[in-house]
Structures are given as structure tokens and as C-alpha cells.
């Protein structure tokens, strides 16, 4: 069974541009979570999608947004990129009905120059 997959693995953007990160959850999982792991700041919760709806949002500005598609895959969009957005973005998925833990992808390393 395939795990959580994220693309691209690495992404380099210039300040002010937009970045789109993608996540495919484990088959059967309906919840997708996004986390930001910036140097020195630990793992910060960004967004939680379940059944196509945004369920919860972390303390991030509105230029961080996303969506979940009918097949439960998800996109994270970051507009007006700033240097401090450089981080590893991790996606995780879980099933509210069966599993009790979240499974993580390998992450997308976003570098803003």
C-alpha cells in the first residue's frame, strides 16, 4: 500500500511568487493535515482538511491557503512568498474511523530566494 506522497520534493521560488504543494493521502484516508517545519521553529500546524472541508487552521496569515479535492488529495498554496516561508512542508493523512495516528509524507522543501 502506498504511503502519503508529496510533490515536488524540492521547490525554489523567488520572493513574491506563489508556490503550490501537493499531497496524496493513503488510500481510504479522508483527513489531510499540513505542517510547516521551519528551522528553529519546530513543527507548526497549518491546515486540516476532512471530507473536502477545512476543519481547522493554525496561526498563519491568509496567504497560506489550500483545498482538498473529491479524491481527498490536497493542495497547499502560499502566495506572496517571503524569505521566512522557507521550510519543510509536511503533509499527513489519517482516517477518522479506523486509524488513530497520522501518517506523514517525506515533505516538500520550499526555498524562497
Amino acid at each position: 500500500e502506498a504511503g502519503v506522497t508529496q510533490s515536488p520534493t524540492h521547490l525554489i521560488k523567488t520572493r513574491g511568487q506563489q508556490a503550490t504543494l501537493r499531497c496524496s493521502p493513503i488510500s481510504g484516508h479522508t483527513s489531510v493535515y499540513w505542517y510547516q517545519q521551519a528551522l528553529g521553529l519546530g513543527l507548526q500546524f497549518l491546515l486540516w482538511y476532512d471530507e473536502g472541508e477545512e476543519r481547522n487552521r493554525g496561526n498563519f496569515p491568509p496567504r497560506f491557503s489550500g483545498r482538498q479535492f473529491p479524491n481527498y488529495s490536497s493542495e497547499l498554496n502560499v502566495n506572496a512568498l517571503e524569505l521566512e516561508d522557507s521550510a519543510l512542508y509536511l503533509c499527513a493523512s489519517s482516517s477518522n474511523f479506523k486509524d488513530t495516528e497520522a501518517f506523514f509524507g517525506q515533505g516538500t522543501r520550499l526555498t524562497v530566494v
Partner: protein
Amino acid sequence: AQSVTQLDSQVPVFEEAPVELRCNYSSSVSVYLFWYVQYPNQGLQLLLKYLSGSTLVESINGFEAEFNKSQTSFHLRKPSVHISDTAEYFCAVSPRRGGKLIFGQGTELSVKP
């Protein structure tokens, strides 16, 4: 609201020595507790979890953690570490099944020969 405190940011230890990584949490509701491990340039892998029942939980690679409700702690221990255990370890809580994870700041375990 929940919060997690990992008391040590870095723990250097010699191979075959015992180790304890400390984790304390704060929550007004019952939580599930997790330890995740992150090897360099990789995503997070679940090491072990406490949901209910026995307060002592074990992983397949020799780690164990004990849930102590009165002290609100979930310390991770291993009686004899290997070089391959070198990684960053994250303690996390979740207020419900499938809910978002709140992470501690991480503890970098460095095992030296």
C-alpha cells in the same frame, strides 16, 4: 488548548548507554500521546503511541514510553542506544482520534561511538 514541552533540545549519548527523552504536556481534555522520529532529510515516522489501557507502551526497536497522568508526562526511554538511533524525536498530543497533532520542539538525539 494543548501544549507540549520537550525539556531537552539536544541529548548526546554514547552507544549502548541508556537514554531518556523527556516530554510534558498540558491539556484541559483527555489526549492521545505520540512519539515520532525524524531521520535526516526525511518525514516523520510514528515510533509509539498511547491511546488507553496500559500506561507503558513499547516500540518494535526497543524504545518504550510511560504515560504518567499525575505528572502529565510521556517520557521516552531506551536501555541501550545504537548509532542508528541518531535522529530528532518529537513528542505530540492529539485531543481526539484523527485530530491535529500538537508537537513539542523536538529533541535531537546524537549517539556517539
